[in-house]
Protein backbone atom coordinates (compact mmCIF):
# COMPACT_ATOMS: atom_id res chain seq x y z
CA UNK A 1 0.00 0.00 0.00
CA UNK A 2 1.46 3.37 -1.01
CA UNK A 3 -0.99 5.59 0.86
CA UNK A 4 -3.29 5.03 3.80
CA UNK A 5 -5.36 7.86 5.26
CA UNK A 6 -7.33 6.98 8.33
CA UNK A 7 -10.13 9.08 9.82
CA UNK A 8 -8.63 12.45 8.95
CA UNK A 9 -10.33 15.42 10.50
CA UNK A 10 -9.66 19.08 9.86
CA UNK A 11 -11.57 22.10 11.09
CA UNK A 12 -11.12 25.83 10.71
CA UNK A 13 -12.77 27.51 13.68
CA UNK A 14 -16.29 26.11 13.88
CA UNK A 15 -16.25 24.83 10.34
CA UNK A 16 -15.51 21.12 9.99
CA UNK A 17 -13.98 20.77 6.56
CA UNK A 18 -12.90 17.12 6.70
CA UNK A 19 -15.11 14.90 8.84
CA UNK A 20 -13.18 11.66 9.08
CA UNK A 21 -11.75 10.93 5.64
CA UNK A 22 -10.35 7.42 5.17
CA UNK A 23 -9.04 5.84 2.00
CA UNK A 24 -6.07 3.92 0.73
CA UNK A 25 -4.14 3.47 -2.51
CA UNK A 26 -2.23 0.50 -3.86
CA UNK A 27 0.96 0.64 -5.89
CA UNK A 28 0.46 1.15 -9.61
CA UNK A 29 -3.11 2.39 -9.47
CA UNK A 30 -4.83 5.50 -10.75
CA UNK A 31 -7.20 7.04 -8.21
CA UNK A 32 -9.49 10.00 -8.46
CA UNK A 33 -11.04 12.21 -5.83
CA UNK A 34 -13.84 14.31 -7.21
CA UNK A 35 -15.77 16.97 -5.41
CA UNK A 36 -17.52 20.26 -5.91
CA UNK A 37 -16.12 23.58 -4.78
CA UNK A 38 -16.07 23.73 -1.00
CA UNK A 39 -16.21 19.96 -0.58
CA UNK A 40 -12.82 19.89 1.18
CA UNK A 41 -10.70 18.78 -1.80
CA UNK A 42 -8.05 21.45 -1.40
CA UNK A 43 -7.79 20.87 2.34
CA UNK A 44 -7.38 17.13 1.86
CA UNK A 45 -4.80 17.68 -0.83
CA UNK A 46 -2.77 20.09 1.29
CA UNK A 47 -2.72 17.55 4.09
CA UNK A 48 -1.69 14.73 1.75
CA UNK A 49 1.27 16.65 0.31
CA UNK A 50 2.41 17.91 3.70
CA UNK A 51 1.51 21.59 3.54
CA UNK A 52 -0.99 21.28 6.41
CA UNK A 53 -1.47 18.88 9.26
CA UNK A 54 -4.77 17.19 10.06
CA UNK A 55 -6.28 17.91 13.48
CA UNK A 56 -6.81 14.19 13.97
CA UNK A 57 -6.27 10.97 12.07
CA UNK A 58 -3.33 9.08 10.58
CA UNK A 59 -1.66 9.45 7.25
CA UNK A 60 0.90 6.96 6.01
CA UNK A 61 2.76 7.41 2.73
CA UNK A 62 5.40 4.90 1.68
CA UNK A 63 7.59 6.45 -0.98
CA UNK A 64 8.52 9.67 -2.76
CA UNK A 65 5.70 12.10 -3.49
CA UNK A 66 5.43 14.20 -6.62
CA UNK A 67 3.01 17.08 -6.26
CA UNK A 68 1.60 19.03 -9.17
CA UNK A 69 -0.30 22.11 -7.94
CA UNK A 70 -3.32 23.44 -9.79
CA UNK A 71 -1.81 26.84 -10.63
CA UNK A 72 1.64 26.48 -12.14
CA UNK A 73 4.08 27.44 -9.38
CA UNK A 74 7.03 28.37 -11.55
CA UNK A 75 9.43 31.32 -11.85
CA UNK A 76 8.53 33.67 -14.73
CA UNK A 77 12.12 34.86 -15.23
CA UNK A 78 13.74 31.43 -15.41
CA UNK A 79 13.94 29.23 -18.49
CA UNK A 80 12.44 25.75 -18.71
CA UNK A 81 15.91 24.16 -18.42
CA UNK A 82 16.75 26.30 -15.39
CA UNK A 83 13.59 25.09 -13.70
CA UNK A 84 14.68 21.49 -14.19
CA UNK A 85 18.08 22.32 -12.68
CA UNK A 86 16.56 24.16 -9.71
CA UNK A 87 14.09 21.41 -8.90
CA UNK A 88 16.72 18.70 -9.42
CA UNK A 89 18.73 20.42 -6.68
CA UNK A 90 15.61 20.46 -4.49
CA UNK A 91 15.08 16.73 -4.99
CA UNK A 92 18.79 16.12 -4.38
CA UNK A 93 19.26 14.39 -7.75
CA UNK A 94 22.59 13.71 -9.40
CA UNK A 95 23.13 15.27 -12.82
CA UNK A 96 23.01 12.08 -14.93
CA UNK A 97 19.87 10.92 -13.07
CA UNK A 98 17.67 13.91 -13.79
CA UNK A 99 18.93 14.79 -17.28
CA UNK A 100 17.58 11.55 -18.71
CA UNK A 101 14.18 12.13 -17.10
CA UNK A 102 14.16 15.75 -18.31
CA UNK A 103 14.69 14.63 -21.91
CA UNK A 104 11.91 12.07 -21.54
CA UNK A 105 9.46 14.67 -20.21
CA UNK A 106 10.38 17.32 -22.78
CA UNK A 107 9.88 14.82 -25.56
CA UNK A 108 6.71 13.17 -24.31
CA UNK A 109 4.95 16.39 -23.36
CA UNK A 110 6.25 17.97 -26.54
CA UNK A 111 7.78 21.20 -25.26
CA UNK A 112 11.46 20.58 -25.96
CA UNK A 113 11.49 23.51 -28.37
CA UNK A 114 10.83 25.87 -25.42
CA UNK A 115 13.61 24.63 -23.15
CA UNK A 116 15.77 27.74 -23.54
CA UNK A 117 12.85 30.16 -23.29
CA UNK A 118 11.95 32.15 -20.23
CA UNK A 119 8.67 30.97 -18.76
CA UNK A 120 7.12 34.46 -18.94
CA UNK A 121 6.97 34.29 -22.73
CA UNK A 122 5.46 30.81 -22.90
CA UNK A 123 1.78 29.89 -23.23
CA UNK A 124 -0.46 28.78 -20.36
CA UNK A 125 -0.45 25.24 -21.74
CA UNK A 126 3.37 25.09 -21.68
CA UNK A 127 3.32 26.43 -18.11
CA UNK A 128 1.09 23.51 -17.18
CA UNK A 129 3.38 21.04 -18.95
CA UNK A 130 6.37 22.38 -17.04
CA UNK A 131 4.36 22.34 -13.82
CA UNK A 132 3.59 18.66 -14.36
CA UNK A 133 7.13 17.81 -15.46
CA UNK A 134 8.64 19.29 -12.30
CA UNK A 135 6.51 16.97 -10.20
CA UNK A 136 7.74 13.99 -12.24
CA UNK A 137 11.44 14.86 -12.39
CA UNK A 138 12.43 12.66 -9.44
CA UNK A 139 10.33 9.71 -10.66
CA UNK A 140 7.99 9.65 -7.67
CA UNK A 141 6.24 6.61 -6.23
CA UNK A 142 3.08 8.60 -5.67
CA UNK A 143 2.03 11.42 -7.96
CA UNK A 144 -0.60 13.81 -6.60
CA UNK A 145 -2.21 16.06 -9.18
CA UNK A 146 -4.50 18.97 -8.44
CA UNK A 147 -6.79 19.71 -11.42
CA UNK A 148 -4.05 18.64 -13.82
CA UNK A 149 -5.77 19.22 -17.15
CA UNK A 150 -6.33 22.96 -16.81
CA UNK A 151 -4.79 24.61 -19.83
CA UNK A 152 -4.05 21.37 -21.68
CA UNK A 153 -5.02 21.17 -25.32
CA UNK A 154 -6.48 17.90 -26.63
CA UNK A 155 -3.13 16.52 -27.78
CA UNK A 156 -1.47 17.28 -24.44
CA UNK A 157 -4.43 15.74 -22.62
CA UNK A 158 -3.90 12.50 -24.55
CA UNK A 159 -0.16 12.61 -23.95
CA UNK A 160 -0.85 13.17 -20.27
CA UNK A 161 -2.80 9.91 -20.16
CA UNK A 162 -0.04 8.14 -22.10
CA UNK A 163 2.48 9.21 -19.47
CA UNK A 164 0.06 8.24 -16.72
CA UNK A 165 -0.33 4.76 -18.20
CA UNK A 166 3.44 4.45 -18.46
CA UNK A 167 3.94 5.56 -14.85
CA UNK A 168 1.30 3.14 -13.72
CA UNK A 169 3.12 0.34 -15.51
CA UNK A 170 6.31 1.29 -13.66
CA UNK A 171 4.48 0.95 -10.34
CA UNK A 172 3.82 4.64 -9.70
CA UNK A 173 0.47 5.42 -8.07
CA UNK A 174 -1.45 8.45 -9.23
CA UNK A 175 -4.00 10.48 -7.37
CA UNK A 176 -5.98 13.04 -9.33
CA UNK A 177 -8.00 15.56 -7.35
CA UNK A 178 -10.49 17.43 -9.47
CA UNK A 179 -13.95 18.94 -9.54
CA UNK A 180 -14.80 17.14 -12.77
CA UNK A 181 -13.80 13.58 -13.63
CA UNK A 182 -13.84 12.62 -17.28
CA UNK A 183 -12.72 9.32 -18.75
CA UNK A 184 -13.78 7.37 -15.69
CA UNK A 185 -12.61 4.11 -17.24
CA UNK A 186 -9.00 5.27 -16.93
CA UNK A 187 -9.26 5.17 -13.12
CA UNK A 188 -8.90 2.15 -10.86
CA UNK A 189 -10.74 3.85 -7.99
CA UNK A 190 -12.88 6.96 -7.82
CA UNK A 191 -13.97 8.62 -4.58
CA UNK A 192 -16.45 11.42 -4.25
CA UNK A 193 -15.80 13.99 -1.57
CA UNK A 194 -18.99 15.64 -0.36
CA UNK A 195 -19.14 18.03 2.58
CA UNK A 196 -15.93 16.66 4.04
CA UNK A 197 -16.96 13.01 3.77
CA UNK A 198 -15.50 10.59 1.25
CA UNK A 199 -18.11 8.41 -0.44
Amino acid sequence: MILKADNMIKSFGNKNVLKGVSFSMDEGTVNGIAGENGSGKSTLLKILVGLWKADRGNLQINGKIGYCPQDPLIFPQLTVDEHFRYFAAAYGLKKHDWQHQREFLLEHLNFGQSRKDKVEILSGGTHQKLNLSLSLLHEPDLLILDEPYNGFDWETYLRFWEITAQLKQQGCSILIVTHLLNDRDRFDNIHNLKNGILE
Partner: protein
Amino acid sequence: MTPDRITTSLFMILRMLLRRRIVLILLAVIPVVFFSVVAFTTPDRKVPFRLSSLDGNIFIAASEKQIALVFFAVAVAGFLMSFLAMNLIQKNSKINRRLILCGYHPLELLLSNLLALTLIIVLISVYVGLITSAFFHVSHPGLMIFSLALTGFVYGGYGLVVGSLVEGELEAILLIVLLANIDAGWLQNPIFYAEAQNQVIIHWLPAYFPSQSAIFAAFTDYSILRASLASLLYGSGFLAFSMLIFYLKMRIRK
Protein backbone atom coordinates in the same frame (compact mmCIF):
# COMPACT_ATOMS: atom_id res chain seq x y z
CA MET B 1 22.01 21.73 4.21
CA THR B 2 24.13 21.24 1.12
CA PRO B 3 26.36 23.83 -0.58
CA ASP B 4 25.14 22.62 -3.99
CA ARG B 5 21.53 23.47 -3.20
CA ILE B 6 22.48 26.86 -1.77
CA THR B 7 24.64 27.84 -4.75
CA THR B 8 22.04 26.61 -7.26
CA SER B 9 19.39 28.68 -5.52
CA LEU B 10 21.71 31.69 -5.28
CA PHE B 11 22.44 31.66 -9.01
CA MET B 12 18.77 31.26 -9.86
CA ILE B 13 17.81 34.18 -7.59
CA LEU B 14 20.47 36.42 -9.13
CA ARG B 15 19.38 35.44 -12.63
CA MET B 16 15.77 36.24 -11.80
CA LEU B 17 16.64 39.60 -10.31
CA LEU B 18 18.82 40.69 -13.18
CA ARG B 19 16.19 39.60 -15.70
CA ARG B 20 13.48 41.75 -14.16
CA ARG B 21 13.14 44.84 -16.27
CA ILE B 22 11.94 46.97 -13.38
CA VAL B 23 15.06 46.12 -11.38
CA LEU B 24 17.40 47.23 -14.15
CA ILE B 25 15.36 50.36 -14.78
CA LEU B 26 15.39 51.29 -11.11
CA LEU B 27 19.12 50.65 -10.80
CA ALA B 28 19.86 52.80 -13.83
CA VAL B 29 17.29 55.55 -13.42
CA ILE B 30 16.89 56.25 -9.69
CA PRO B 31 20.49 57.31 -8.91
CA VAL B 32 20.76 59.35 -12.11
CA VAL B 33 17.45 61.16 -11.47
CA PHE B 34 18.17 61.85 -7.80
CA PHE B 35 21.71 63.12 -8.38
CA SER B 36 20.68 65.18 -11.41
CA VAL B 37 17.95 66.90 -9.41
CA VAL B 38 20.48 67.76 -6.69
CA ALA B 39 23.08 68.92 -9.19
CA PHE B 40 20.66 71.20 -11.03
CA THR B 41 18.74 72.63 -8.09
CA THR B 42 20.93 72.84 -4.99
CA PRO B 43 23.19 75.87 -4.44
CA ASP B 44 26.91 75.59 -3.75
CA ARG B 45 26.96 77.91 -0.72
CA LYS B 46 28.76 76.69 2.39
CA VAL B 47 26.53 75.71 5.28
CA PRO B 48 27.81 74.93 8.77
CA PHE B 49 25.93 72.13 10.46
CA ARG B 50 26.20 70.08 13.63
CA LEU B 51 26.19 66.31 13.57
CA SER B 52 24.03 64.90 16.32
CA SER B 53 26.16 61.85 16.98
CA LEU B 54 29.20 64.02 17.73
CA ASP B 55 29.64 65.17 21.29
CA GLY B 56 29.67 68.89 22.01
CA ASN B 57 29.17 71.71 19.61
CA ILE B 58 31.33 70.62 16.72
CA PHE B 59 30.27 72.18 13.45
CA ILE B 60 31.16 70.93 10.01
CA ALA B 61 31.11 73.25 7.04
CA ALA B 62 30.28 71.82 3.63
CA SER B 63 28.53 73.04 0.50
CA GLU B 64 24.78 72.57 0.50
CA LYS B 65 25.05 70.66 -2.78
CA GLN B 66 27.62 68.23 -1.36
CA ILE B 67 25.53 67.61 1.74
CA ALA B 68 22.49 66.96 -0.44
CA LEU B 69 24.47 64.55 -2.63
CA VAL B 70 25.56 62.47 0.36
CA PHE B 71 22.12 62.56 1.87
CA PHE B 72 20.53 61.51 -1.43
CA ALA B 73 23.12 58.75 -1.89
CA VAL B 74 21.89 57.29 1.40
CA ALA B 75 18.27 57.69 0.30
CA VAL B 76 18.95 56.01 -3.07
CA ALA B 77 20.78 53.06 -1.49
CA GLY B 78 18.04 52.67 1.11
CA PHE B 79 15.17 52.83 -1.35
CA LEU B 80 16.74 50.49 -3.91
CA MET B 81 17.72 47.88 -1.36
CA SER B 82 14.42 47.84 0.48
CA PHE B 83 12.53 47.57 -2.81
CA LEU B 84 14.69 44.73 -4.11
CA ALA B 85 14.61 42.81 -0.82
CA MET B 86 10.83 43.15 -0.59
CA ASN B 87 10.44 42.06 -4.20
CA LEU B 88 12.67 39.03 -3.73
CA ILE B 89 10.86 37.66 -0.70
CA GLN B 90 7.29 38.55 -1.61
CA LYS B 91 7.21 37.47 -5.26
CA ASN B 92 8.58 33.99 -4.72
CA SER B 93 6.81 33.04 -1.54
CA LYS B 94 4.47 30.38 -3.01
CA ILE B 95 7.10 28.90 -5.32
CA ASN B 96 9.58 28.76 -2.46
CA ARG B 97 7.08 26.64 -0.55
CA ARG B 98 6.89 24.28 -3.49
CA LEU B 99 10.69 24.01 -3.51
CA ILE B 100 10.56 23.19 0.19
CA LEU B 101 7.98 20.48 -0.45
CA CYS B 102 10.36 19.08 -3.05
CA GLY B 103 13.23 18.90 -0.59
CA TYR B 104 14.80 22.32 0.03
CA HIS B 105 15.21 23.21 3.68
CA PRO B 106 13.78 26.67 4.53
CA LEU B 107 17.20 27.67 5.85
CA GLU B 108 18.85 26.79 2.53
CA LEU B 109 16.46 29.08 0.66
CA LEU B 110 16.82 31.77 3.30
CA LEU B 111 20.60 31.61 3.14
CA SER B 112 20.65 31.82 -0.64
CA ASN B 113 18.32 34.83 -0.54
CA LEU B 114 20.54 36.53 2.03
CA LEU B 115 23.67 35.84 -0.03
CA ALA B 116 21.95 37.30 -3.09
CA LEU B 117 20.99 40.39 -1.10
CA THR B 118 24.54 40.77 0.20
CA LEU B 119 25.89 40.77 -3.35
CA ILE B 120 23.29 43.33 -4.40
CA ILE B 121 24.11 45.52 -1.40
CA VAL B 122 27.78 45.50 -2.43
CA LEU B 123 26.89 46.27 -6.05
CA ILE B 124 24.55 49.14 -5.19
CA SER B 125 26.85 50.72 -2.60
CA VAL B 126 29.86 50.64 -4.93
CA TYR B 127 27.75 52.01 -7.79
CA VAL B 128 26.12 54.82 -5.79
CA GLY B 129 29.39 55.53 -3.95
CA LEU B 130 31.28 55.95 -7.23
CA ILE B 131 28.61 58.26 -8.63
CA THR B 132 28.77 60.39 -5.46
CA SER B 133 32.56 60.56 -5.70
CA ALA B 134 32.25 61.72 -9.30
CA PHE B 135 30.43 64.88 -8.16
CA PHE B 136 32.86 66.06 -5.46
CA HIS B 137 35.92 65.03 -3.47
CA VAL B 138 34.73 62.59 -0.80
CA SER B 139 37.16 62.52 2.16
CA HIS B 140 37.08 58.73 2.54
CA PRO B 141 35.50 57.04 -0.53
CA GLY B 142 35.97 53.51 0.86
CA LEU B 143 34.22 54.39 4.12
CA MET B 144 31.54 56.21 2.16
CA ILE B 145 30.83 53.03 0.19
CA PHE B 146 30.84 51.07 3.43
CA SER B 147 28.32 53.50 4.92
CA LEU B 148 26.08 53.03 1.89
CA ALA B 149 26.38 49.27 2.37
CA LEU B 150 25.22 49.79 5.96
CA THR B 151 22.23 51.72 4.62
CA GLY B 152 21.57 48.82 2.25
CA PHE B 153 21.81 46.38 5.13
CA VAL B 154 19.36 48.29 7.36
CA TYR B 155 16.90 49.10 4.59
CA GLY B 156 17.32 45.65 2.97
CA GLY B 157 16.27 44.22 6.34
CA TYR B 158 13.27 46.54 6.38
CA GLY B 159 12.37 45.38 2.83
CA LEU B 160 12.57 41.76 3.96
CA VAL B 161 10.24 42.46 6.87
CA VAL B 162 7.72 44.20 4.61
CA GLY B 163 7.98 41.46 1.97
CA SER B 164 7.42 38.73 4.57
CA LEU B 165 4.50 40.42 6.31
CA VAL B 166 2.56 42.15 3.54
CA GLU B 167 0.99 40.10 0.75
CA GLY B 168 -0.14 42.87 -1.60
CA GLU B 169 2.60 44.32 -3.81
CA LEU B 170 1.11 47.80 -3.89
CA GLU B 171 0.77 47.98 -0.11
CA ALA B 172 4.35 46.78 0.29
CA ILE B 173 5.68 49.38 -2.16
CA LEU B 174 3.72 52.07 -0.33
CA LEU B 175 5.27 51.09 3.00
CA ILE B 176 8.73 51.19 1.48
CA VAL B 177 8.33 54.48 -0.34
CA LEU B 178 6.74 56.04 2.73
CA LEU B 179 9.55 55.21 5.13
CA ALA B 180 12.36 55.73 2.63
CA ASN B 181 10.94 59.14 1.73
CA ILE B 182 10.23 60.36 5.22
CA ASP B 183 13.31 58.92 6.88
CA ALA B 184 16.18 58.71 4.39
CA GLY B 185 14.74 61.23 1.96
CA TRP B 186 13.80 63.98 4.39
CA LEU B 187 14.36 63.76 8.16
CA GLN B 188 17.99 62.62 8.01
CA ASN B 189 19.06 65.65 6.01
CA PRO B 190 21.52 67.25 8.45
CA ILE B 191 20.30 70.72 7.59
CA PHE B 192 16.71 69.83 8.39
CA TYR B 193 17.79 67.79 11.37
CA ALA B 194 19.65 70.69 13.02
CA GLU B 195 16.41 72.67 13.26
CA ALA B 196 14.06 69.76 13.96
CA GLN B 197 11.76 70.16 16.95
CA ASN B 198 11.85 66.54 18.00
CA GLN B 199 15.22 65.01 17.28
CA VAL B 200 14.61 61.88 19.37
CA ILE B 201 12.18 60.47 16.80
CA ILE B 202 14.77 61.00 14.07
CA HIS B 203 17.36 59.11 16.16
CA TRP B 204 15.19 56.01 16.16
CA LEU B 205 14.55 55.87 12.43
CA PRO B 206 16.45 53.27 10.35
CA ALA B 207 18.53 55.67 8.24
CA TYR B 208 19.85 57.66 11.21
CA PHE B 209 23.06 55.72 11.93
CA PRO B 210 23.97 54.96 8.30
CA SER B 211 23.42 58.66 7.43
CA GLN B 212 25.68 59.76 10.26
CA SER B 213 28.30 57.29 9.11
CA ALA B 214 28.05 58.48 5.48
CA ILE B 215 28.39 62.15 6.44
CA PHE B 216 31.41 61.42 8.66
CA ALA B 217 33.04 59.49 5.80
CA ALA B 218 32.25 62.17 3.21
CA PHE B 219 33.32 65.28 5.11
CA THR B 220 35.36 64.43 8.22
CA ASP B 221 38.11 62.28 9.67
CA TYR B 222 36.00 61.21 12.64
CA SER B 223 35.61 57.49 13.29
CA ILE B 224 32.51 55.84 11.88
CA LEU B 225 32.84 52.89 14.26
CA ARG B 226 30.01 53.78 16.64
CA ALA B 227 27.56 54.66 13.89
CA SER B 228 28.55 51.51 11.98
CA LEU B 229 28.01 49.21 14.94
CA ALA B 230 24.67 50.81 15.69
CA SER B 231 23.65 50.38 12.01
CA LEU B 232 24.65 46.72 12.11
CA LEU B 233 22.63 46.23 15.28
CA TYR B 234 19.59 47.97 13.79
CA GLY B 235 19.80 45.97 10.54
CA SER B 236 20.30 42.72 12.46
CA GLY B 237 17.04 43.35 14.30
CA PHE B 238 15.15 43.67 11.02
CA LEU B 239 16.97 40.66 9.63
CA ALA B 240 16.24 38.42 12.62
CA PHE B 241 12.57 39.40 12.57
CA SER B 242 12.21 38.78 8.84
CA MET B 243 14.05 35.44 9.08
CA LEU B 244 11.67 34.32 11.80
CA ILE B 245 8.60 35.21 9.73
CA PHE B 246 10.09 33.57 6.63
CA TYR B 247 10.84 30.40 8.56
CA LEU B 248 7.38 30.25 10.13
CA LYS B 249 5.71 30.79 6.76
CA MET B 250 7.87 28.30 4.91
CA ARG B 251 7.98 25.41 7.34
CA ILE B 252 5.99 22.37 6.38
CA ARG B 253 3.61 20.94 8.93
CA LYS B 254 4.30 17.23 8.42
